[in-house]
């Protein structure tokens, strides 16, 4: 959730010098993993502090006040964090439909709900799923491309208006698009009057609106990363006769691949989660995304099949959670460390 925030500030963090909380979080995760590994190797398999002598008799009270209470906190927090997830997984496996029927956790196990949500003719879940993947996927790819182009020019070229451009990107990104949702709706409906293919109720139109935010926080994130790639690489390529386009597409883009992946994933997650603009622009049920479709589904008081919704929610969340956990490992950093030698 917070990963889609607009981040104005810059925090001195290790790894990616990124001005955003996203970058920070990613960098920090990486650092934490590294530190955990380091401690594991230092502390040995026991993980105990070197201060504690191994032969000292076990003292529960001392153990509790040193680390035991932390486990208590940890268990409480894990329960707090997981019980809604347990609930939704359990009710998705419940063959019976209602909300009340879902309360006895894991009392019955079956995949009936999954079958129901996938085959219900009233609920085009698979269409929504496909729409979401298409819209979020294309938006992610285009966002990365547009953002990388801009970040490259900001990072590698010096031109009049460069500082102004950077500042405007930082300032404009403070005003999220959903504030202008009324104007976006009216703009798209007048575009739709003239060009029905890209106006209201089209995926292309929605993607175009999303791309309006492409040069925002993402460009800034990439700009920071591009700056960490030594300019001598470009110089060497230029001496070898490579033009700017070749340098960009065949050299720089490969070196910054990790940040491209991160931006693509964040953009993907943000589009999957976007409700306001999508709900206003996509009118037909068949055209809607998961966020719009599932929200309208459960807010309809006549819809009583809670476990089918849960099954849909589990399926909808899986790709995003998978991508998110994948993202943690992806940034290894130091890609350019040995490049210039």
């Amino acid at each position: 959730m917070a990963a889609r925030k607009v981040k104005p500030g810059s925090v001195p963090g290790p790894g990616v010098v990124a001005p955003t909380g996203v970058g920070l979080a990613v960098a920090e995760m990486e650092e934490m993993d590294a530190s955990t590994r380091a401690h594991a190797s230092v502390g040995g398999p026991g993980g105990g502090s070197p201060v504690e002598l191994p032969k000292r008799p076990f003292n529960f009270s001392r153990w509790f006040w040193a680390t035991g209470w932390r486990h208590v906190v940890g268990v409480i927090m894990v329960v707090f964090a997981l019980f809604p997830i347990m609930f939704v997984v359990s009710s998705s496996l419940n063959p019976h439909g209602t909300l009340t029927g879902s309360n006895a956790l894991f009392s019955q196990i079956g995949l009936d709900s999954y079958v129901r949500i996938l085959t219900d003719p009233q609920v085009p879940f698979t269409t929504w799923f496909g729409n979401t993947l298409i819209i979020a996927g294309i938006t992610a790819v285009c966002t990365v491309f547009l953002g990388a182009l801009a970040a490259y020019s900001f990072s590698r070229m010096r031109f009049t208006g460069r500082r102004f451009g950077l500042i405007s990107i930082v300032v404009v990104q403070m005003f999220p698009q959903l504030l202008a949702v009324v104007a976006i709706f009216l703009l798209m409906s007048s575009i739709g009057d003239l060009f029905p293919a890209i106006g209201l109720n089209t995926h292309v139109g929605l993607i175009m609106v999303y791309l309006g935010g492409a040069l925002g926080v993402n460009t800034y994130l990439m700009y920071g990363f591009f700056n960490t790639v030594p300019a001598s690489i470009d110089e060497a390529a230029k001496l070898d006769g490579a033009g700017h386009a070749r340098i960009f597409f065949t050299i720089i883009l490969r070196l910054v691949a990790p940040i491209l992946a991160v931006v693509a994933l964040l953009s993907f997650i943000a589009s999957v989660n976007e409700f306001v603009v999508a709900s206003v622009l996509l009118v037909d049920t068949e055209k809607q995304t998961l966020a719009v479709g599932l929200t309208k589904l459960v807010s309809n008081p006549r819809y009583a099949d809670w476990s089918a919704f849960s099954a849909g929610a589990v399926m909808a969340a899986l790709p995003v959670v998978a991508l998110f956990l994948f993202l943690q490992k992806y940034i290894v950093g130091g890609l350019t460390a040995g490049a210039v030698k």
Partner: protein
Amino acid sequence: MSTATDDVREDAPPKPTKQQRRAANIADEASGGIKVLLVKLVGLGIVDALALYAVFVLAMHEQWLVLGLVAVVTVIVNWIYFSRKKLPAKYLTPGVIFLVVFQVFVLGYTAYIAFTNYGTGHNGSKEQAVSSLMASSLERVPDSPTYGVTVVERAGELGLLVTDPEGEALVGTNEEPLHEASGAEFDGDLAVSAEGWTSLKFADVLARTDEVTALAVPYSEDPNDGAIRTPDGSKGYLYTSTLEYDAEAGTMTDLETGTVYSDTGVGAFTAENGDELLPGWQITIGFDNFVRAVTDTRLAGPLVYVTLWTFAFALISVASTFFLGLFLAITFNDMRMRGRKGYRVLMILPYAIPSFLSALVWAGMMNKSFGFINQVLLGGAEVPWLTDPTLAKVSIIIVNLWLGFPYMFLVCTGALQSIPEELQEAATVDGAKPWAIFRLIKLPLLLVSVAPLLIASFAFNFNNFNTIYMLTDGGPRDANAPIPVGFTDILITMVYKVAFTGENRDYGLASAYSIIIFIVVAVISIIAFRRTKSLEELN
């Protein structure tokens, strides 16, 4: 931004000489090769073809201003990509076009709408309002002659091919008054087809009965002449309006009651007693929306409590997630503890799930009669988690804490680990207690790096639409307000509901509320930029 000069490299001191630049260009061309040129030509060709099509369509609709803009932008784009220089512009143009249209322009457009009466009943121009009023008050002329009609279609638009009593074939649509049909073919007395139109078969007419019976083709350019309508798709009759429009005086007269409605500048025909004929049309009304929002008591009340709650929600969300996150970061930042990584992965999970799904699931669990929390955890209690004005706010805070604490946990852990260990050791040697070390040394250092993120988090929660909308939909609804607003609405959900839900969509008022958010966000940004000096650091 795209008014760039030329390709001056970062570490190429003053300015490259002419020769150097020429050399660079030659190198560029030599490296690019025919493939790059081909890609560029094809790409620009597609762009130009699309632009040409757009210009053509815009010319048909007589949208000259937009046409001019499209033409100018296309020329500029071509100039940029065919030019030898303008290197930065080549990289910036695609993104900037989207940014300008869908981010900068729409923000400005929102500000404009805030000064209009745009909304249900005020959707179009005055001409559209006149024809729509006339069309909605049509009544069949008692002694109307019978016209033979054939339903025809052109480019998805239905029209009527009318054979008048003299045997002439006329054709028209809702928008286009009857005019002579060229190349009409007759079957007996009835014109059955015309050039450029497809005649509908009987089965199609039946299938589209609703559209066919809704057709009202104006008899002539003068709306007072009435329109031809057909109840069955084969016989048409003349209908005239019970309203009479006097274009000279700009008045509408109800022929049955004799009431005269005139244009008094409020965007609708208004009678002397204040009755309005709707639909009206769109006009700019100055600060009326803002004045209405703060002076109309039924609107001012909701605006005040929504604004207060928006601030409270954002502040409490930031504070609660930050302190929980900080506490957890401290708790799990002890290397003696085992299984820290396991705890961490499990606690990050709420952050990985799309927030709209989490909020919907929480809404189910907090359901008063059937929800998991009341039924199982509280043994059948009937706590109105989401339906009591106060408790709903508490629930929202709890859910937002669940959604947001992992992020703060990650951020604080990172910030804590970046504080050098020596500081703690030095303080310990000097005899400081752990609490004093934390409060006087670690916390200030931590706040320096985390403060910008807290401000950003505030700005995000200020417009945290998903949590509110999916969890309570802003409810419980405030029955006294004339707009669909509830006790847990924040400003952005109120904008959405005023503009897009309920019987009356009021785009003008919704945009006025958006302007309020703009101002708050702008103030937050200024504080953030002052605080972090991030703009000064840009270079």
